[in-house]
């Protein structure tokens, strides 16, 4: 089929490409022409007028929890991919804390097979240790061969310095990172950030130093072994400062931040809203400012949602008993554009770096190019659309978001990848 996208703005920082109001011809799933399209060429099966809209490299979320296998009532691989497409993402990496965990080639193949025909690319992340127990290394070589993008015991940090050292050394053979959920086990187990609010609410506190200790351990271990560590969902001011220093020393340290950690503080918990309960917890205003500074100066490489679906039965309970996590695939682009782009913290190029380019670089994946002969991998962005978040319109199977009814400016209106387009809520084969 023949698709024409006309009057679009085309931006791709890796190619230094910045074109205004051009047309794009896609035929049989391949980019055939960029620029003016002659009258002769303009008979197409479908033409979209993208006046004022932006075509950018497809966004990639490197921290997503799909609940399949294990909790298909909360999210399946397909519903998670639909949610990603609806949020403007053409690729995701999924965390291994499923049941069973992603610690064998069989589970990797199971996930890849389920996602094979979807528009959204799914890159499984394997557990560092068998069953994420922190005791025995997972079969890493076999998992690499099966095609995992990284390793993580997310939900917890790799349990001991000793096993972390071995994992980092082993993975040097494959140049893959360990993604770390940084939290000291002996200080874990609270329900919210330790602050004046935890005292006011009488909730058991998680001190920020619980995160800082493991960030420091991991930086030291990355330096010692020469291995690659990616800090997941960074949330404290101290942690950002440590990553900044590590980068000055040219260590193999990268970091991501979630939209909730740069847009909300623990004030959101004042009504005991379990949809504001996550781990790491929402922190203070000072920490939020540190996230913004880290994003600005490049200390924080990318933005990831930590999309964590939970059923209403699990979340509609006493705050202390509720599980951690919120869904984020369908609010992420809007929050980034509203809170970072429109507030002039990041330029559009920087937004694209943090949402599309850097996550792929960290995972050694190729970055989409806008060239003739390439397969299109795009997100189509409307920077100025004002819209209200409605959890009931999500493609995700779950509804646990603290952003319901929030007014946002800017959203992804479509995505193209794997020979498919998702636009206006519909899939179309190209």
């Amino acid at each position: 089929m023949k698709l024409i996208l006309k009057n679009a703005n085309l931006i791709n920082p890796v190619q230094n490409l910045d074109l205004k109001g051009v047309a794009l011809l896609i035929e049989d799933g391949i980019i055939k022409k960029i620029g003016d399209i002659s009258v002769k060429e303009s008979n197409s099966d479908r033409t979209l007028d993208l006046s004022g809209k932006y075509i950018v490299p497809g966004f990639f979320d490197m921290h997503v929890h799909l609940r399949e296998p294990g909790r298909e009532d909360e999210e399946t691989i397909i519903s998670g991919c639909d949610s990603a497409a609806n949020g403007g993402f053409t690729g995701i990496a999924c965390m291994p804390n499923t049941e069973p965990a992603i610690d064998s080639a069989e589970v990797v193949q199971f996930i890849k097979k389920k996602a094979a025909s979807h528009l959204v690319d799914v890159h499984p992340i394997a557990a560092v240790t068998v069953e994420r127990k922190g005791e025995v290394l997972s079969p890493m070589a076999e998992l690499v061969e099966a095609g995992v993008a990284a390793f993580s015991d997310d939900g917890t940090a790799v349990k001991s310095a000793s096993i972390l050292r071995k994992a980092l050394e082993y993975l040097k053979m494959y140049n893959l990172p360990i993604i770390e959920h940084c939290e000291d086990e002996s200080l874990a187990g609270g329900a919210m950030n330790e602050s004046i609010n935890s005292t006011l609410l009488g909730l058991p506190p998680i001190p920020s130093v619980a995160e800082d200790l493991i960030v420091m351990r991991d930086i030291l271990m990355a330096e010692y072994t020469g291995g690659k560590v990616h800090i997941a969902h960074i949330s404290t001011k101290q942690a950002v400062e440590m990553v900044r220093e590590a980068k000055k020393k040219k260590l193999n340290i990268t970091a991501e931040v979630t939209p909730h950690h740069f847009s909300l503080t623990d004030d959101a918990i004042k009504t005991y809203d379990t949809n504001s309960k996550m781990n790491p917890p929402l922190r203070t205003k000072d920490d939020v400012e540190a996230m913004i500074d880290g994003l600005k100066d490049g200390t924080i490489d990318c933005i990831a949602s930590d999309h964590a679906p939970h059923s209403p039965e699990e979340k509609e309970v006493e705050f202390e008993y509720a599980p951690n996590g919120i869904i984020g695939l369908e609010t992420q682009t809007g929050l980034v554009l509203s809170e970072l782009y429109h507030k002039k913290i990041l330029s559009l190029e920087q937004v694209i770096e943090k949402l599309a380019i850097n996550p792929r670089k960290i995972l050694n994946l190729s970055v989409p190019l806008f060239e003739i002969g390439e397969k299109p991998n795009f997100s189509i962005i409307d920077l100025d659309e004002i819209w209200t978040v409605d959890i009931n319109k999500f493609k995700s199977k779950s509804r646990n978001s603290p952003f319901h009814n929030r007014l946002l400016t800017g959203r992804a209106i479509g995505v193209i990848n794997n020979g498919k387009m998702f636009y206006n809520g519909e899939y179309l084969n190209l």
Partner: protein
Amino acid sequence: MPLLSRHLLGLYGVPKEDIQLILDTAITFREVLDRPIKKVPTLQGKTVVNLFYENSTRTRISFELAEKRLSADSINFSVSTSSVSKGETLKDTIRNIEAMKVDMVVVRHSAAGTPQFLTKVCSANIINAGDGIHEHPTQALLDMYSIREKLGKLEGLKVCIVGDVAHSRVALSNIYGLKTMGAKVSVCGPSTMIPKYIEDLGVDVIYNIDEAIQENDVLNVLRIQLERKAREYFPSVREYANYFGITNERLEKSGKDILILHPGPINRGVEISSDVADGMNQIILRQVTNGVAVRMAVLYLLGTLN
């Protein structure tokens, strides 16, 4: 004059007029309790459920008695926390209870915020009888009542809360209530038992018990939890008793007459020495009776609201 809120979830943000009204109303009910016939028909036809997820016989009996003295129909619903994990959710439980047409729910739970949660899923008036380490407003109200009864006022008094402030719902409610009523509040205890940001609430922190005795008009001494988990916060019971226990020797040394409260039951020889405890019998018994009167006042004010 009605109360501002239709629930009593805590004393945080409760205005002075409301606390004043509760305490003044309690005086009337305190008189009722001294009569031969201790019953008034005020809440006849109202149903109150005492929903207790934690075993607290004292608080439950106090509420139950207050309900009976007001002629309300009261139902006890005790759930052991061990059965919660496999049993029905709190939301289901409260929906079931609500279907029985109850007017008020008195709730005690080990998880902070449970009373707030109930206001979202049920339409009855909710009274917090203690939630986790958050608040225990009726305990603080009865403490304030007892102080006022003994010293004639709250405004301008210096009150120190002594003990494990970080893990006490009584402490937080007392801080809010007393400060609203114009008292000057401080806390005293081992530094591991003082919440990190407590000074932001406008209270002073004292680490020396003699200083606390010297500088205050009232000590509200909290019960120290002796379970293993709580024990992580101080080296030994002996050390606690030696450095923070209230003893006759310390009181005599101070040379002043200080009012001592304790929510009970006392760990004799730990937070309060045996000889001091003996001398406190009367005020402790008065506190128990005052507790019923204060709870009657709260039930009455909320129960006649709508």
